[in-house]
């Protein structure tokens, strides 16, 4: 029997992006069904449609073989569908119990919340599915793995028979992933259907019964796990035999461009986020900072680009300490920045591609004279960049909002790499975009290096790091725990350092500065 089914579903978003084209998908009762595909392939959209968060432009949804009208998640929940989102849907200041019971609050007398009943209901249910939860702790104080369990519990307690998980493992450490998989297996044995989206093919092979592969908004096919090898899955995802065509000659590092000495940063709440960081970025090299998300990379990048203040230590550019300088001062020194958030920070969605491309040099020749702003030369310049970075866009005056993720990122990259930077700080430069655009951007970063600029690549994507970095620093809990030359390294090698199970001798690391 089919638990949930999408028939001929098409979804067009208001900005004109077609996320799903005539998609057919079904999951059987009690199976673990993986949905894989590149970024932008339409997986998340399909899941949102199954959960009633988005309405399909056309097509039909069936739940337990009955046609379903899903106007909101409320309808989906009533029909036994639950979803755990990639970004948790929790109220930070609420306790675990309040988060779980929100919307189905038990009452005493006519008006009041019954906190005792809350506790009772949850602990009863938790026992049944073998869960442990700190019921009266505030969610904001919990580690990620526990938050995820709260999310799963939220769905189960509402009677979910179909559980959709959007990239559940992306925020977890390997140990937590294993724990999660135990839970999922256990649930599927109790007859609950699990659908999960992922990028990580080893996980798919490890746990899925069946696999659906999506590409460019379409379903390529659904297969039994045994039918495919990992490399076959990749081929189907990308639509061709794909191998990154990136070759890297050995770097020729030159003079130091950016020297960081004893950088310390305490967050507003007193947490010690960056601990005594020291490193040197030289011209003609790509220095990568690898690590799991949330180990201080975000703060490091913000401090180095002037977006965050109150750090101590030194940041030397051209021999001068510029720690604490404002973004415009750092840009003048030739430091450019590809941010990890292209929508909130990296662009103005409601301005044209052309106007987005000159935001860091609008006041210079030839775009402005002393006062007057020259539209024509802006457009001309944009035309050139669109060609050079092969951005798919109708015209330079198209709004950035209308672009796909990959093309939007290329607009940001085009701007940041073309103002003759000395140092490029790239934070997750290919996060969440299609493979072709990723490859293009990585090549451009290599080209920057070969031109004698320095690139500081901050990335959680190990494949990317191993592909283009010359040296790698591993950041763990705000500390540099390893300094590695990128020669014959594997993801597993890095993994040990990223998880904190292994670290280099502090004495050796101290010599980093003199490298």
């Amino acid at each position, binding site marked *: 029997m089919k638990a949930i089914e999408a028939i001929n579903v098409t979804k067009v978003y208001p900005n004109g992006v077609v996320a799903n084209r005539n998609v057919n998908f079904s999951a059987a009762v009690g199976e673990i069904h993986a949905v894989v595909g590149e970024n932008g392939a339409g997986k998340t959209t399909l899941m949102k449609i199954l959960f009633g*968060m988005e309405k399909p432009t056309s097509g039909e949804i069936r739940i337990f073989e009955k046609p379903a009208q899903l106007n*909101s*998640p*409320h309808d989906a*929940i*009533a029909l036994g569908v639950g*979803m755990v*989102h990639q*970004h948790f*849907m*929790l*109220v*930070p*200041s*609420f306790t675990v119990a*309040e*988060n779980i019971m*929100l*919307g*189905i*609050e038990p*009452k005493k007398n006519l*008006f*009041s*919340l019954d906190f005792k009943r809350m506790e009772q209901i949850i602990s009863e249910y938790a026992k049944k599915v073998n869960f442990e939860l700190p019921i009266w702790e505030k969610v904001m104080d919990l580690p990620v793995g526990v938050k995820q369990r709260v999310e799963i519990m*939220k769905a189960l307690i*509402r009677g979910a028979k179909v559980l959709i998980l959007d990239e559940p493992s992306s925020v977890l450490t390997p140990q937590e992933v294993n724990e999660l998989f135990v839970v999922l297996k256990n649930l599927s044995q109790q007859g609950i259907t699990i659908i999960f989206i992922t990028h990580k093919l080893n996980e798919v092979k490890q746990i899925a019964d069946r696999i659906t592969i999506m590409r460019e908004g379409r379903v390529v096919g659904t297969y039994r796990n045994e039918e495919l090898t990992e490399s076959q899955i990749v081929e189907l995802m990308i639509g061709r035999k794909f191998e990154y065509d990136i070759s890297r000659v050995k770097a020729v590092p030159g003079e130091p461009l950016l020297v960081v000495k004893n950088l310390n940063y305490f*967050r*507003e709440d007193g947490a010690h986020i960056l601990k005594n960081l020291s490193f040197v970025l030289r011209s003609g090299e790509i220095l990568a900072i690898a690590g799991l998300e949330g180990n201080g990379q975000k703060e490091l990048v*913000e401090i180095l680009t*002037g*977006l*965050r*203040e*109150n750090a101590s230590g030194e940041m030397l550019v051209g021999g001068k300490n510029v720690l604490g300088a*404002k973004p415009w001062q750092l840009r003048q020194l030739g430091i450019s920045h590809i941010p990890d958030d292209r929508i909130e*920070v990296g662009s103005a969605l409601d301005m044209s591609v052309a106007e987005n491309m000159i935001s860091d040099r609008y006041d210079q020749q030839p775009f402005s004279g002393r006062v007057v702003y020259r539209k024509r030369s802006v457009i001309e310049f944009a035309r050139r960049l669109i060609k050079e970075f092969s951005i798919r866009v109708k015209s330079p005056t198209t709004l950035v909002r209308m672009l796909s993720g990959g093309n939007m990122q290329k607009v940001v990259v085009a701007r940041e790499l073309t103002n003759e930077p000395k140092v490029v700080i790239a934070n997750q430069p290919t996060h969440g975009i299609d493979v072709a655009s990723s490859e293009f951007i990585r090549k451009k970063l290599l080209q920057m290096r070969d031109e004698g600029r320095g690139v500081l690549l901050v990335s959680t994507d190990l494949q990317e790091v191993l592909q283009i970095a010359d040296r790698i620093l591993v950041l763990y809990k705000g500390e540099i725990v390893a300094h590695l030359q990128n020669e014959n390294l594997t993801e597993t090698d890095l993994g040990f350092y990223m998880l904190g199970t292994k670290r280099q001798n502090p004495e050796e690391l101290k010599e980093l500065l003199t490298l």
Partner: protein
Amino acid sequence: MSNFFQNFIDPAFWYSVLRVSTPLLFAVMAALVSSISGSINIGIEGMMLMAAFWGNVVGAFVKNPWIGLVAGVASAMAMSLLLAFSHLKLRVNLVIAGVALNLFGSGFTVFMLFALTGEKGTSASLGSQPIPRLDIPLLRDIPFLGKVLNNHNALTYLALISIFLVDYLIRKTPLGMRMRAVGENPDAATSVGVSVLRVKYLSLLLSGVFAGFAGAFLSMGYVSWFARDMTSGRGFIALAAQALGGNSAILGALGALLFGIAEATGFTLQSLRIPSEITNMIPFILTLVVLIIYARTRVRSHSRIQKI
């Protein structure tokens, strides 16, 4: 000068603090119940005006203050529905919608006042039906406090009670919990099937109820006529007072009392021959000060880009 300081130990002064605080208390509750679910209600001013107008006019026509009160509150609720509909259904920016609502309230009441009375200033010619004062036997006999607390307009007592009602609503009831959830993370509410739209509608409607009481008090208690733009900024002052108190009804009420004290002090100064234009400025200047204090006490983020 000694006159001025003696004032603060005079029960009459504190009596008048409670009196002038009444509309602010209601208005702060109006601001709170909407802000708690994430919508800042700029339109309180317009809702109050509407309620002041209809409360007084209907009360005068039917010769019953209570029916007038009901009409006033209903008119403010209608305004809040208009605001909610514009913002939630038509997706008008909430601030702009609030400003439009205030303009509407101001224009509409003057237009109708003229149509009904042929005057543009006040509705005094219609006669008045004020909400009665309550003389409470036991309270009356307590020294000092009796003089402060007794013999107020019925709505003043309602205002004091509503502080605790709102406090209870927010902290102890399912609706309050949902309102807080919607305000803090609407996606979380949606993900468990709580309709953000419905909660926001309810919050704004409730906000309209309190704004209605605030307005009705002005024309049926504070004075006994309607005057054009008689709310004179109280709806905005309430926003500042509420911000001061954060998500707490009790602290918000203390904020309202602070403004009440400022206003009452203004009256005292007037009796000392300081021009009314100057003393009337006190609440507005205090609001500016409160805004600064509020902004300064918020946690200072290190993220420059978040602070922009």
